[in-house]
């Protein structure tokens, strides 16, 4: 069955849809966690610490977190590899362009591809910035995420990178969520409007929720 799925263009789209949904669920949890920053360093840092102790005493320190990370990495890799292979197939299937070009809804396709690449690069930067601290501006302090976040969004480029990525995320979710529903066969004529609304609302809430943090830092609400 795995072979059938992976070898088929429809199957690969399914892989993208499932991995996309996994990442989306994670993002919902992520944005809720992020918003805790507005309740001060205590609550935010406590939340960050709790993430590492989830499941104790059954799980050892950070086991759950690593489990989630492994699932997420698998999802990102599956999503990216499928996307890459499908895009290659798509480009090969339409090698020559029409002489008479028109602006059209392939906008969604283009933003999915570019948006995906932007998000991929962002994830790398984001981890190096706030998880490992490798590229963090100023002194990265493990165990003090509140301060680290404030540091990042105190730089102009930190804000620009983050906000651009979050806008890309919104667009990506907007088409991606609806698209995943079609790929998984849950769309229908009667459900189409509802699905599109859910996609729009999700995209809007997630983007707004994530962008609230840099805006908070910039405006001094978070400092």
């Amino acid at each position, binding site marked *: *069955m795995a072979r*059938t*799925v992976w*070898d*088929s*263009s*429809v*199957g*690969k*789209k*399914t892989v993208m849809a499932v991995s996309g949904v996994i990442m989306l669920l994670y993002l919902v949890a992520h944005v809720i966690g992020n918003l805790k920053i507005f309740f001060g360093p205590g609550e935010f840092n406590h939340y960050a610490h709790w993430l590492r102790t989830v499941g104790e005493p059954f799980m050892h320190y950070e086991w759950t977190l690593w489990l989630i990370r492994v699932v997420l990495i698998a999802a990102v890799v599956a999503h990216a590899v499928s996307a890459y292979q*499908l895009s290659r*197939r*798509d*480009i*090969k*299937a*339409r*090698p*020559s*362009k*029409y*002489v*008479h*070009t*028109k602006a*059209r*809804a*392939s906008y*969604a*396709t283009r933003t*999915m591809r570019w948006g995906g690449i932007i998000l991929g690069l962002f994830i790398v930067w984001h981890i190096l910035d706030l998880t490992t601290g490798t590229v963090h501006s100023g002194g990265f302090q493990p165990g003090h995420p509140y301060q680290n976040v404030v540091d990042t969004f105190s730089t102009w480029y930190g804000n620009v990178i983050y906000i651009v990525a979050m806008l890309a995320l919104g667009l990506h979710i907007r*088409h991606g969520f*609806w*698209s995943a*529903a*079609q*790929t*998984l*066969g*849950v*769309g*229908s*004529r009667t459900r*189409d409007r509802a699905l599109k609304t859910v996609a729009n609302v999700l995209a809007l809430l997630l983007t707004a929720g994530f962008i609230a943090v840099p805006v908070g830092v910039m405006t001094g609400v978070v400092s």
Partner: protein
Amino acid sequence: MRLTLRVWRQKNADAEGAMSTYEVDGISSDMSFLEMLDTLNEELILKGEDPVAFDHDCREGICGACSLVINGDAHGPERTTTCQLHMRSFKDGDTIDIEPWRASAFPVIKDLVVDRSAFDRIIQAGGYITAPTGSAPEAHATPVPKPDADFAFEHAECIGCGACVAACPNGAAMLFTSAKVNHLNVLPQGAPERETRVLDMVAQMDEEGFGGCTLTGECATACPKGIPLVSITSMNKEWLRATRRVAKR
């Protein structure tokens, strides 16, 4: 009307193609688009030039032979086939760009004529119900609920013109394939081959080098028969169902 036509000319499959410009005059707004091209061709023949090759046959919008991309739109600006497009959709003095379907699964044969045999092979892979002549039960033995019959009909209307592929930025044949899968899979007569049909047809579609679906919806917009985009969703559902069921066997 007087019009300027920019037409894709390509001697044969191996030759390089390019746009050539022609002027036509005395075009009536009651003419169909193909009759306008007929007029051009009559002039070209008398001038000793090679007339523009294009596929066409019934000129009633049902055979699916005609296949022109007009000003960037498969079958032109109206939601119909090229043969049913009339010159009243254009204005005097317009410049019209005419190109063939473009997709690597539809190689150009000459000028505006492309090879769409990939579609036939998708049907051959499973787009049928195995019912050898003579084996049929009485037609009323199996009633088909009207909604199912209507759903089947709506998808069976596909004329196999390939506009969906031409319009798709990925050159995908999902709408074509899904139309046939949905037509046959909803019917009780099609049930015994329900799983193999969708799996084999999708596999053949991939094999032919069509692209994948990114749900841009261009195909459904271009479809002269109004096959809806959600048709693809239904096929995806059938495909997933079939994959699960076949894996269990």
